[in-house]
């Protein structure tokens, strides 16, 4: 920690408006088992220091993986040089303000991955592989993966914060491929979180493995889905794409200050039906996107973005909070010590409602249940929503009928949200990594309840 504090003292002699330094150590273990055989065990530890300087509204960043004082000083000088070169002739000032604290935060995990033998981790994957492969002789390939990532951070800044914290993430998942008569289909599952190996101990491998294998096999005979503007019941993974990719990215304040987002000036406006409340919350225990502090040292918080259909506000970094004269929300995040910090989400989701899943199905005369999103893409400018889902069911007269294969959902997010008329009590968060501008990956989770809305269906 000393070197991080020392570098701040050094930078304060350089006539800068704000500076911070962050040391990051990331240790990862990845194991892949394919068809009952080991494919790869790889482990890594990366360590680097990132230094950031603000001068007259311009930022300079520099990072290094070497930790001699001379090298760190050279890196600091480079950050100052970059910021000063950019700010030449500028009189713009950004008055950074934020929570100042001195704290050491330990992760709350029950079974730290380092306390579990690699043999046990391997045994879990082999067991999962066996369950999935033995389900049906049409299963042609099973790939199971385990990943753990332990991050250690030390941060100091010119506001006076001195912070030390760790983050622990564990993940397991499988992709199962089935084939028959020249047709090929697959399904997947994954579980993850800011948790330790208890994630896997609490998992019913038999149930998860059989479920995903059954889906892959059943998809071989699944029917073609209908197309057109339909009543769709979106599962939590689809709801999560709508929350994160469209409404979430457009609510990141860096998109607001440059007026790129379709939600610029939206505070106070009705953007969805009364059933819609949307939140970004980095404090949820165990969720994959949870963080004690963001990469700027601001404690994570809960930001209500939409409340009962009314748009409430944005997520902030230190910089956007200063520009918009509000408080930072703990959303200034960086992929790693090599990358910039900008506004990023944590756990972003729609709040659950009062309906049970069964009640929504029973209440739907004609519709389509959409299951297992394969992801989506941000559209902060246009507010367009698109996701492809792996499978679904046609709903007729309140009952699930035909099982259907892959289809695409799309439309304008605001139009879709205004048609939401039922929201389930059942609620799930799904973890993953979010890129912004096609890169800068940070751990997040997305999700919500089952939502019923009018959505365009195509691509089946």
């Amino acid at each position, binding site marked *: 920690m000393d070197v991080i504090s020392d570098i701040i003292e050094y930078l304060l002699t350089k006539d800068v408006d704000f500076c911070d330094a962050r040391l990051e150590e990331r240790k990862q273990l990845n194991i892949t088992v394919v068809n009952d055989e080991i494919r790869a*065990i790889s482990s*890594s*530890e990366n360590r680097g220091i990132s230094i950031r300087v603000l001068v007259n509204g311009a930022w300079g960043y520099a990072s290094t993986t070497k*930790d001699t004082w001379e090298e760190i000083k050279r890196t600091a000088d480079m950050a100052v040089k*970059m910021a000063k070169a950019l700010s030449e002739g500028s009189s713009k000032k950004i008055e950074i303000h934020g929570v100042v604290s001195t704290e050491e935060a330990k992760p709350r995990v029950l079974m730290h991955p380092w306390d579990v033998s690699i043999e046990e981790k391997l045994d879990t994957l082999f067991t999962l592989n066996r369950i999935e492969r033995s389900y049906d002789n049409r299963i*042609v390939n099973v790939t199971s993966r385990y990943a753990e990532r332990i991050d250690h951070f030390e941060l100091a800044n010119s506001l006076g914060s001195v912070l030390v914290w760790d983050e622990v993430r564990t993940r397991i998942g499988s992709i199962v491929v089935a084939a028959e008569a020249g047709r090929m289909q697959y399904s997947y599952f994954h579980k993850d979180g800011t948790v330790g190996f208890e994630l896997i101990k609490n998992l019913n491998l038999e149930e998860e493995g059989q479920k995903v294998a059954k889906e892959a096999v059943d998809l071989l005979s699944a029917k073609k889905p209908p197309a057109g503007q339909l009543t769709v019941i979106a599962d939590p993974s689809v709801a999560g794409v709508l929350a994160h990719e469209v409404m979430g990215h457009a609510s990141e304040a860096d998109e607001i200050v440059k007026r790129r987002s379709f939600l610029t000036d939206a505070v106070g406006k009705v953007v969805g039906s009364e059933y819609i409340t949307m939140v970004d919350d980095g404090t949820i225990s165990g969720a994959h996107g949870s963080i004690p502090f963001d990469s700027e040292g601001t404690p994570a918080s809960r930001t209500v973005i939409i409340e009962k259909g009314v748009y409430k506000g944005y997520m902030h970094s230190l910089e956007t909070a200063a520009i918009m004269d509000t408080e930072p929300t703990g959303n200034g995040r960086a992929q790693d010590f*090599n990358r910039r910090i900008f506004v990023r989400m944590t756990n972003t989701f729609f709040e659950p409602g009062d309906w049970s899943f069964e009640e929504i199905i029973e209440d739907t005369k004609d519709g389509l249940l959409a299951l297992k999103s394969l992801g989506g893409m941000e559209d902060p400018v246009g507010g367009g929503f698109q996701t492809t889902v792996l499978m679904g069911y046609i709903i007729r007269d309140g009952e699930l009928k035909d099982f259907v294969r892959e289809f695409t959902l799309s439309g304008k997010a605001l139009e879709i949200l205004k048609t939401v008329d039922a929201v389930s009590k059942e609620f799930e968060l799904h973890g993953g990594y979010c890129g912004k501008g096609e890169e800068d990956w940070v751990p997040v989770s997305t999700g919500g309840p089952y939502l019923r809305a009018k959505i*365009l269906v195509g691509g089946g």
Partner: protein
Amino acid sequence: MITPHNVCEKAIKLSTADQSEAFCIDAKMRNIYVENGEIKLITDNSWLGLGVKSIIDNRIGYYSATVKDEEDIKNVVKNSTKIAKISPKDPKFKSLPHPRSVSGSVQDVYDEELVNIEVEEIRERISTLINSAQTNDVRVMTGLLRLIKFNFTVMNSLGVDFSHRGTIVYLHFTAKRGKGEGVVKRFSTKLNQIDFQDAGEELREKTLSASEAEAFRGKEELEVIVEPMELQGLLNVITTASNGEYINRKMSPWIGKLGERVATEALTVIDDGRISGGLRSALADDEGVPTTRKFIIEKGILKSYLFDSYNAGIFGTESTGNGFRRGITSVEESHVRPVNCTASNVIILPGNKSFDTLIEEIDKGVLIRKFAYPQVDPISGNFGLEIRNAVLIKDGSLDRPIKHALLTGNMYMALTKITGIGDKLYNVENFRLPYMRFMGLQLVGM
């Protein structure tokens, strides 16, 4: 002084495994970010990373770390060996690559100018782009210019010893007018090969077109021309379906189809690890296996699969020099990733139709300029992609710009229904590809 070569030498010397491989990369990266028409920040990063693969009695371990001194090298070797010892045997592993003669040369993969460029010069070039893109109502919203220089060594205990240095230039800018957004990207190994004026003009033109687009209504099957920037994402199915790992895992629809027709006769696709100025060009791949030029598809016939050494061993053949750790637009964490079987540089041979001819020849069609994200399910080939900017074609001429529509179809099917290939190639990531025209795809209004 710590260099990738002496780090690898030390790692191989320290290793007690039956076989061992060391990959070390020394890289510097500068990212220049633009926000709202101004350069917002510059990052300056440097790192040295080492990855060591150890094989003990067919048990494989891989460990990697950033390296600052000899202790770190010892730590990587020790942990790699430790993982190998506790790993189950991999009966499919045959051997690390044996040394093969690496001869010939690759051109235009290292840019001295990029290494020495000053901030002021960067600022001038970016200003050129911004000024040519912006008008009264077109604003550059975001921009990234990335400059990378790297050198790496890969060495193994069987005698492979290969070093390479390269540079990467990646440019990605967006601009906005009303509710329309334009995107421009450029990929190169040399800064001077990027025309900032041209990139700015393209960005302005795309932004104006996107802002004038109107929602498409209805549902039609029509001929579709796809711009190279978006086509690359669709044609990625060719490199996954021919990928040795997908073949061995039985996840490719092209298993057992060597020598069979998979596309129209007009389509020829080459994987070339040595093409001049290619982002992945080097005399050898990231395992030290000499790179090659081979037909993946020749006149519509599937000619070869791509292999790294591991997957070649399973398939009972030789590596084709397709084992890579380096990314396309960045080399970050190259040392963290064990070798991945993937394409080097992909060339789609040009056809004989000019852009104008591609349009003039159809009565009813659409020119796709921007998808939300051009992603195809590599196993089934199915896609349903949101169109963010396209132009309808009517009676051989460009008609009105549209958005809010889905293009749906199956890419493996579409490869057999190519009706025209453009006569000019464009660099998109590690692809060189032309405009391409397909039939049998459906446009659905949102």
